[in-house]
């Protein structure tokens, strides 16, 4: 299988590690319980790609390091548009200067996550800057140009174990999710562009989470979403398949849950997801060698 990576430019984008923020109020959960729990941004020492997305006393918990660009709207949008999952990010300030990490996901149009080994995470400070070599926008697989690819680095594409079978791309995935479970982020952002952020697998109906056995989903899992087209905005379309990477943790807020950054979208009949427990980017890119896969 060939792709057009040699035609894709590599461009630098930068962000800084952002501080967690709080509204100062409780967040009312699906169960009516008001909670004050950690959420986004900052540096997470015990929550990285490869860890379970469910079960934390946290809301929209973001793995590893959260980067934001504090410049103009255009600049922070460019960070999220051009950084692709699997891209390299180099620390350019502080005690960990020079260490290279990996982009693992995006969240809400303005946040990009980068993973580093624990010893590096310990050296990082809020405000440290990380420069990413953005490479992947415009990626296409030869002969499958109608499969829209987004937010995906050529390196990860080639490591995902994708095979061709009867004019279909067979994609190993850790879970197959019903389209009706998708929540916040449906329809996309202000431009409706699915390349920028993520949309959530709703984790606030416990019965359905159990019915569909979703609570094992890990950060970094490659997942397929049924009946979902994400070419230009995320929306329902019978038979369409969206492939995405799980980027942030579960939520107590109605309609929210683990986030999925779409990486592929196809009309019916083009993509065939196949279950594979190791379909996780930490496994594909060897980000968590200490784990048993």
């Amino acid at each position: 299988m060939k792709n057009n990576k040699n035609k894709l430019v590599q461009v630098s984008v930068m962000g800084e590690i952002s501080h967690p923020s709080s509204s100062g109020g409780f967040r009312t959960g699906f169960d009516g319980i008001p909670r004050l729990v950690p959420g986004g941004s900052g540096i997470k020492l015990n929550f990285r790609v490869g860890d379970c997305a469910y079960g934390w006393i946290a809301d929209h918990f973001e793995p590893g390091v959260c980067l934001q660009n504090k410049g103009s709207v255009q600049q922070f949008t460019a960070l999220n548009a051009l950084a692709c999952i699997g891209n390299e990010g180099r620390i350019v300030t502080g005690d960990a200067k020079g260490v290279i990490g990996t982009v693992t996901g995006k969240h809400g149009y303005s946040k990009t996550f980068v993973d580093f080994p624990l010893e590096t995470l310990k050296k990082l400070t809020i405000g440290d800057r990380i420069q990413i070599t953005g490479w992947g926008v415009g990626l296409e697989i030869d002969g499958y140009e109608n499969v829209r690819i987004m937010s995906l680095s050529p390196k990860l594409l080639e490591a995902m174990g994708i095979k061709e079978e009867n004019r279909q791309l067979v994609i190993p995935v850790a879970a197959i999710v019903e389209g009706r479970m998708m929540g916040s982020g449906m329809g996309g952002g202000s431009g409706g562009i699915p390349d920028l952020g993520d949309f959530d697998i709703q984790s606030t109906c416990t019965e359905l989470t159990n019915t569909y056995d979703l609570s094992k989903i890990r950060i970094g899992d490659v997942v397929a979403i049924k009946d979902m087209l994400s070419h230009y905005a995320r929306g329902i379309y019978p038979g369409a398949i969206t492939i995405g990477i799980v980027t942030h943790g579960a939520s107590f807020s109605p309609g929210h849950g683990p986030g999925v950054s779409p990486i592929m979208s196809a009309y019916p009949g083009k993509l065939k997801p196949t279950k594979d427990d190791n379909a996780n980017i930490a496994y594909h890119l060897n980000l968590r060698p200490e784990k048993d896969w």
Partner: protein
Amino acid sequence: MADIKTNIDSLVRMKVKGEIIHPELWIERGFATTWDGRPKLTVGIGGIVYNVRVGDPVFGWHADHLNAGVAVSDPDPSKQRGVNVFSCIGNEATVLTGSAKGAKGVVVGKTYFFAGRSYRLVVDFKSEDKMKLTIGDKIEIESWGTGLSIIGLEGVRVMSLSPDLLPKLGVEVMDGKLKVPVVKIVPGSLMGTGVGRGGAHMGAWDIQSCSPELNKEHDLYSLRFGDIVAVTDVTCDLGNSVYEQGIIIGVISHGESELGGHGPGIATIFSGSKDILEPIYDPKANLAYILKLRDDLEW
């Protein structure tokens, strides 16, 4: 109907004020992109829409997220929420300024302009009054209904509903259930933008109209502005989300959309579990019929 008792005596009546807002484009300086990759200029978000009113079809217009009437909001985000939350469907609106000063209208919907992150009301006026209105005219709403609940059926959450509209909806309490006439029951799997947004007492939740096949299968093409519809397997109790035991009932507040994940918006008026809230089919369950807003239409 007479048997429905509510907490009406404990509800405050107060004035909120907004203004008629200018139409806006989905994408600043350019085209929005439809679900299938076509560029589209979005007509009908905001402003005064003259030739489409509550009771008219939702589909068939060269528009996107059309507000079928007058869009009322406030430029200040905090006041805007106040106007949107506290105004209830069926509340009376009065024009405070301009040539139509004194004219009366009625709140017939709530919408959320996703790209501009702003909440609006849809207010219906008689055509002759509408002709006199100007963008920027101040509109006052006598807000009444926030906190409404049905005594003995507190498990049904009531929101955005004027207490004087409730008995006109033809609702009944029978066998411990609230039965509500609706024109259509939509499966929750169709629900799109608006899921997870937070309190359902603001704005609208879109029924996705980006799959022509599903639009046909569920006959969304027959929807009208002001239709009362039910959606199964979802809840709006504390926010819009999937919920196997839940059902919601709301009012079609804005038009269809060709953008992925978007479509006609529902302003929720009831949310509850299926064992206490039940829709009953009634082809006349439309605000224009219920409030006698359209003599020109045959029902």
